[in-house]
Structure formats: C-alpha cells, structure tokens
C-alpha cells in the first residue's frame, strides 16, 4: 500500500488503516452510511477498504431486528462504509 508522504503528520500517531490492520483476525463491527451494520471476523482489506469478512451477521437498525447470518466469507464493498469498530459486537438488539 502506497502511503503518501505527509510532512505535517506526526509519525508516532495512530494511522487509521494501521488500526484496521491490527484488527485482522478479530471481530470487527462495520457501520455503513445507511442503517445497516455488519459484524464479522476480519480476514483482510485493500487500499479502498473493501473488506473480506467471515462468520458475518448483518443488522438493519430501523426495522429493529437481526437480518441474516452468513458464513463462508463475504466481500464487503468499501463504497458505503462509514465506521469500523474493532472488537465491536454490534447493536444491542
């Protein structure tokens, strides 16, 4: 991954994609731009933060309920990802 040079950033700070990288192998909670959330085990991601997840549960927030439990790995399109929460377990419903 090509990191652009930023003379202004402090090198000892925490880079966002480094934090995501540390999360590989553990549970992660993804919040989309819409009212959808995904919880799964992070297998990997790319420069565009498209994500490969396993043992995935999909949540729809407004209709109040869990939707689909999927397994066997999904590729989540990074286009609509808003937040990534390492170790998150998802909404409390």
């Amino acid at each position, binding site marked *: 991954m090509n990191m652009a040079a930023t003379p202004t950033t402090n090198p000892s700070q925490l880079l966002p994609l480094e934090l*995501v990288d540390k999360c590989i192998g553990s549970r992660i909670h993804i919040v989309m731009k819409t009212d959808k959330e995904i919880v799964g085990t992070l297998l990997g991601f790319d420069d565009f933060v498209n994500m490969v997840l396993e043992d995935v549960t999909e949540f729809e927030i407004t209709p109040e309920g869990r939707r689909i439990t999927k397994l066997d790995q999904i590729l989540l399109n990074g286009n609509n990802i808003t937040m990534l929460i*390492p170790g998150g377990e998802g909404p409390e419903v």
Partner: protein
Amino acid sequence: MLAKSNKEKENNRVTSATDARGFDWWNTSGVTVSLPCHTANMADKEKKKKESIFDLSKYIDKPIRVKFQGGREASGVLKGFDPLLNLVLDGTIEYMRDPDDQLKLTEDTRQLGLVVCRGTSVVLICPQDGMEAIPNPFVQQQDG
C-alpha cells in the same frame, strides 16, 4: 491494443487537419504526440500532489465532532488521521438522526469506543465546542 484502434478510427474520420501553425491535430502520420498545453498541466498537477489544505494535527487528542454522508454524526477524541481523511477516534459517541428526531441529538446516542472513520464518508469535522444549536433563523414569522 485499444488505443491503437481508437487512433485508427480518428484517422479514418479526417484525412488531414492542420492548423495555422502546421500542427497535425488528427495525427494522420500515426505517431503519438503530446500537446504542449497538456504537459504543462501535468507538471502543475505533480507540484500540487498531496498538499492538504487543513492540518488535523492541531486537533490530535482533542474532542471533535464529525458528520458523515447519510446523516450520521459522531464525536470523539482524535487519535490519528491520514491524508485521505480517515480518522481514528477514541471514546466515540454516535448520534443517530431519526425522522422524528430531526436534530435532537441527545435522544439516540451510543458509545462506540475506539473507531476508525472512513475519509470517503466524512463531510464535516469541527471541534467539539465549536458549534452550538440555535433557533431556526430561516423560519418566517406569519405577520399576515
């Protein structure tokens, strides 16, 4: 391969079209020539490459408020960022905006902890104490 076929199409369209300076615009000789103005633009672009117009390092370890595409809002302490505006926030609180909520943010909040925010989704960043709610200035009083 694709580029070649496009050039062939161009060559078939116009047999010859040279301007006053004798510049062969349609490239009938089949040789690729880069236009002078094009290369000047490329040089400019390279100079301006990754200059950020705003320095977020001022806000490190400070509480900030972030708004996202899709109406979500969050606030937290800024722990890190990158030039693409991905953020790391700690102690994040998310404010949800429901249709009945309008902008009453205090109703539906949830604690998220350490969060990475996608820069592609961020629309606004401001300090936590940098904004306050005011009565709607655009509401017209019905004086009849």
